[in-house]
């Protein structure tokens, strides 16, 4: 009843092509953003930022990047962890070599460097497809992790190969380091994510996004109608790696502050981000965030519920949590194989009819 578009007329092409053509959607998004930007920062504490919000935002960014590659361009990649590592080590080198560099520039440059590396490892995609490509991208994953572990220059020859983010300030507020305020970190990541989600949304509904989707749906047919596979696939790798690199940079500099490449950017991260994309919904921006939310929040919810709510032993709770995560994944796939985003869409469709579905 509330969610009904009757009476909303579009009188210009611009209005017709808006991202949210329905007024209620627009209001909801504005309200959501207003809460996220204006209300939440006053309430966040260390726990909320470090344990929930930052991982959510950062993995949201990584999932968004991977979704561009997998969901929109159809190239399955398992190199996400390695590319995040590129972003992290790039920002470490930038932060330590140029201490005066603005953090926004650092993050963007890290994304750019990762994009270049991503294009390089994207070259085999011109010849290899499907799961073969997925496994081939693991070569990138293992090689990059090995490289950062082995070559001393990347970690400034520290004794153990760990990298630590030095303290950096943005507009006078401390952004990295242990004594940074939670709300600064949160707002920084949120702003970047919002801006780049908007850019992604516009990319995928423009010419370049349509090229990606043409390649995804059938690359030979796309080639015949004049889409250049080389440019299209490599641009998808570049854009996707740019996002993933930024996520890696934020993960290291803002969220964790100290990382070890094998542990923080190992193969399990690659899988985790791919799960987020599939669970959330392939080829959907909002799905990337839903997937990230599902896989970041659900374990914490389940853990807190079982340990504090039911009083289970932490270890039992962990085992049950692993089991439940598996069951939930299977359950959601059976209910809606196209991901949470599709579920959300169906809910909205139903809501438009409600309360008179016939």
């Amino acid at each position, binding site marked *: 009843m509330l969610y009904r578009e009757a009476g909303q007329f579009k009188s210009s092409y611009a209005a017709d092509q808006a991202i949210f053509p329905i007024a209620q959607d627009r209001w909801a998004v504005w309200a959501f953003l207003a809460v996220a930007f204006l209300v939440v920062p006053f309430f966040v504490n260390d726990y909320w930022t470090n344990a929930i919000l930052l991982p959510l935002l950062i993995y949201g960014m990584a999932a968004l990047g991977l979704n561009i590659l*997998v969901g929109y361009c159809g190239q*399955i990649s398992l190199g996400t962890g390695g590319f995040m590592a590129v972003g992290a080590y790039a920002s470490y080198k930038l932060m330590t070599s140029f201490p005066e560099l603005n953090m926004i520039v650092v993050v963007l440059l890290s994304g750019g460097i990762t994009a270049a590396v991503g294009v390089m490892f994207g070259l*085999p995609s011109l*010849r*290899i*497809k*499907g*799961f*073969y490509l997925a*496994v*081939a991208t*693991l*070569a990138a994953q*293992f*090689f990059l*992790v*090995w490289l950062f*572990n*082995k070559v001393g220059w990347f970690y400034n020859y520290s004794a153990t190969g760990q990298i630590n983010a030095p303290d950096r300030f943005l507009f006078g507020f401390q952004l990295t380091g242990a004594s940074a305020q939670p709300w600064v970190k949160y707002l920084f990541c949120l702003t970047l994510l919002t801006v780049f989600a908007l850019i992604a949304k516009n990319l995928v509904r423009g010419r370049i996004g349509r090229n990606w989707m043409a390649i995804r749906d*059938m690359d*030979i*047919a796309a080639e*015949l109608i004049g889409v250049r596979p080389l440019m299209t696939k490599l641009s998808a790798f570049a854009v996707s790696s740019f996002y993933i690199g930024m996520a890696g940079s934020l993960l290291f500099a803002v969220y964790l502050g100290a990382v070890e490449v094998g542990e923080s950017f190992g*193969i399990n991260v690659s*899988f985790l981000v791919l*799960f987020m994309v*599939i*669970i959330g919904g*392939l080829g959907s921006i909002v799905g990337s965030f839903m997937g990230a939310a599902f896989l970041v929040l659900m374990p914490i919810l389940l853990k807190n519920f079982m340990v504090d709510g039911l009083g289970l032993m932490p270890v*039992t709770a*962990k*085992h*049950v*949590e*692993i*089991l*439940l*995560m*598996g*069951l*939930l*994944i*299977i359950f959601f*796939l*059976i209910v809606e*194989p*196209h991901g949470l985003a599709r579920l959300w869409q169906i809910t909205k469709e139903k809501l438009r009819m409600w309360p008179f579905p016939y």
Partner: protein
Amino acid sequence: MAIFIETVLSGLMAGVMYALVALGFVLIFKASGIFNFAQGVMCLFAALTFAGIMEKTSVPWPIAFVLTVAVMVGVAWAVERFVLRHLVNQEPIILFMATIGLAYVLEGVGDIIWGSDVKVINIGLPSGAVDVLLDNFDIYLDKLEVFAALIAAVLVGFLAVFFQKTRIGRALRAVADDHQAALSVGISLQTIWVIVWSVAGFVALVAGIMWGAKSGVQFSLSLIALKALPVLILGGFTSIPGAIVGGLIIGVGEKLAEIYVGPMVGGAIENWFAYMLALAFLLFRPQGLFGEKIIERV
């Protein structure tokens, strides 16, 4: 020269160990087009169940083995009944994701039932070096791996006979060729899937025992799947001989690289080298060495 021979031999043996794991992937992919992410966890789960039954009840190992096979058949049935049946005709990546869910479930169940401690498999498997070779030729070869190679040979022979000569085997191949055609001549997909997953479970058990004998049965066993993936793409997802040959190539290649190139660049290169090697092969044959040729039509 002895070093070179020794390296190649060890590489071949390691390759067989990888191939054992890769076999399970191939079986399921061949019959249902599913890239079964849970294969590694199935190895862990099977070996855990086997070791757990022996530890808790102290029955002789053949009985534990049979019981474990029964459990794996049960798993196969449950997978078909509760997962696959509801996801017929979905895209490969969705099915892949479902097997990830399955991996979580099996890991959780295994942990809850058997705990996370190291379990020792003590069924008198041979261990140590092959004495004849070491004493006379100064060539080192692990007995356990020779034994594993024999087992793998028997297993592949058994699978070949099963696929080529039996009625069920023919039905399996029919399903692999064309689902709908197979359905139309009266082959039950559901039964076939249960059988294939059971066989894959059996293979997982064998692989789990072989690897578990080296390191004890523990969570890390599920990570051997990562060593099987390059083997899989090198050999092709759909070919059993491919899995074996791919395993041998990867095994020898990575050992030679680690021993002759590794020291120059700081070592521990075998993990990524295996993937790079597979990638290099793929650039020439995108469907893997023995994979079916990919024909694309508009």
